[in-house]
């Protein structure tokens, strides 16, 4: 049993020594840093077998050595334990971090998705609103266009009533008269911006606009903010 014990002790010692040597060796080879987390977390440190030189010699100083070694081993063990603890802690931290990261990512993803959904909803809402607005606008615009074309019609009718076409006019004559109006629709300026080439025709057009003054303009002076210039295009359609 004692042999067995001894052998057990020995084996333990050898293993211990080997472990210490390996540790030292590794420390020597690799350097050591408390703060460096294991590069490959979770992977076992590889052990190497060291054969004893002389067990007889070893014995004498074995105790001392053993004590020292034990102390060292204890220290080492503690360090290792600490290290292990620390590693575990680090690992745990990393794990925690990873989890946190994962959680964060998940949250972000969720957030993004929510945001996307919200955006889609908002877009849909906007589209609905735009569609409504478009429909309303279309109605208004039609009304507005009707109002404007009615106004243009009234103005054109008055100018046409006042336009005495020269009898010499040939077919295809075209003249444009640029006309400025005052707030009440009265013509403040008229000039030929595109001549028909026939002075009598141009004159008749200019005169027609002047004769039609004031143009049948809406009473509200604010219309003037929108319309104060007209281009009258004179082109007889039946000659």
């Amino acid at each position, binding site marked *: 049993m004692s042999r067995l014990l001894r052998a057990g002790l020995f084996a333990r010692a050898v293993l211990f020594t080997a472990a210490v040597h390996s540790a030292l060796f590794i420390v020597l080879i690799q350097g050591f840093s408390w703060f460096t987390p294991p590069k490959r977390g979770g992977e076992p440190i590889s052990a190497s077998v060291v054969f004893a030189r002389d067990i007889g010699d070893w014995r004498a100083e074995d105790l001392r050595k053993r004590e020292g070694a034990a102390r060292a081993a204890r220290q080492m063990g503690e360090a290792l334990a600490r290290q292990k603890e620390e590693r575990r802690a680090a690992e745990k931290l990393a794990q925690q971090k990873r989890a946190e990261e994962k959680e964060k990512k998940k949250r972000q993803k969720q957030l993004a998705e929510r945001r996307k959904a919200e955006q889609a909803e908002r877009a849909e809402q906007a589209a609905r609103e735009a569609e409504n607005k478009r429909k309303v606008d279309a109605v208004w615009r039609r009304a507005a266009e009707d109002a404007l074309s009615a106004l243009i019609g009234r103005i054109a009718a008055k100018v046409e009533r006042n336009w005495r076409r020269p009898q010499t006019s040939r077919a295809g004559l075209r003249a444009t008269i640029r006309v400025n109006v005052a707030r009440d629709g009265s013509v403040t300026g008229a000039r030929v911006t595109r001549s028909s080439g026939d002075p009598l025709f141009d004159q008749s057009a200019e005169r027609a606009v002047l004769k039609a003054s004031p143009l049948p303009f809406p009473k509200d002076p604010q219309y003037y903010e929108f319309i*104060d210039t007209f281009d009258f*295009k004179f082109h007889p359609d039946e000659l």
Partner: protein
Amino acid sequence: MSAHSRIALFALALAAMARPAAAVVTIDVTRGTESRIPIAVVPFAFEGAGAAENLPAAIIEANLARSGRFAPLAREDFAARPQTPEEVRYKPWRLLKVENLVIGRLKEQKDGRIQIQFRLLDVFRERQIAGQKFTVPAARLRKTAHQISDIIYEKLLGRRGAFDTRIAFVTVDGRPRRYRLQIADADGHSPKTILESSRPVLSPAWSPDGRRLAYVSFEQNRSMVYIQDLWSGKRERIAGYDGINGAPAWSPDGRRLALTLSKEGNPEIYLYELAGGKLRRLTRHTAIDTEPAWSPDGGGVIFTSNRSGRPQIYRISARGGAAERVTFGGKYNAGASYAADGKSLVLITNQGNGYRVALYSLAEHSVRELTRGRHDESPSFSPNGDMIMYASQAGGRGVLAALSLDGRVRQVIRTRAGAVREVDWSPYGGQ
């Protein structure tokens, strides 16, 4: 709808039409009127001993009215009577919708002649369109007024006026009857008798140069054709054959006269060369062929023939050949002459309501009656083609009437004594 929403509508409409605010709105104007030009002829002031101030303005006003292209404002509606451009205030005339204003002054010169100046003003564009000064003997004041009328007409219508032209016509009065061939201004004023006879005179025809008149006179108790020089009074009988000698018509170049002779049995159209007196027969038909009139290019002659049973217009080349029928429809189409553009004829038609002046479109073969009388005859174009003078009846008496080509304005020219018939409007020039 509130004013605001209406304004908003406008903004919208403008925006809808892709135009910025305070945009230029384009308005198409395609239908004008062809109404008469509203014009005011202000009586001219006169500085001198006489009292001639109203004469030129009154003549100008009457001329413009008669043309059918102008609507002179009644004097009682005049806003003012300015004589110089400085005195003109345009706005009141604008309110009266008068487009043009004629103002002027007369000043007697030391030598007794009269200086007359006129201005044609554009009321809406506020500028002078024409202005001129003449110094003339008092006796020429009337002619000057016609010339001014021509200037106004041309400036405002772009066509030459025909006021300073003359008409030849025949008057009949008295018992026993006296026939007078007279020449007067185109408005019927200042008639001068160039032939007086106890026998009928008809068919006066101006030479294209306006210096001679061809006519038919019965002074030898038969119809014969004469040409009379207007200045010398010298005349020549160019056709006094057996039978009818009638219907003289000058060729556009003035070298030939188409006329109707029945010396070979029945009325046919002949061409008479004025230089040399050569006579050539143009038509050959047993029916009546008469009333020749030249086409504007002188290449052909239209005439009246009853070869279809009723009078209709036919055409034949001035070189002869076969005649082709021109007018169709109606019981009676006669006495035709070409419009200046050669596209239509003015003639006497009877569509069942009387003998009336009508325009016959050669392209469409359509007749448009211009008058509403029962015995209208002898239509004659003014040299610018814008008016027709014809003989009509009013109050049982023969009168002359001036007609605008659209048929809307007719003015009767009466003589104080006697009936008027058979009119021909002179060409330009020859005075």
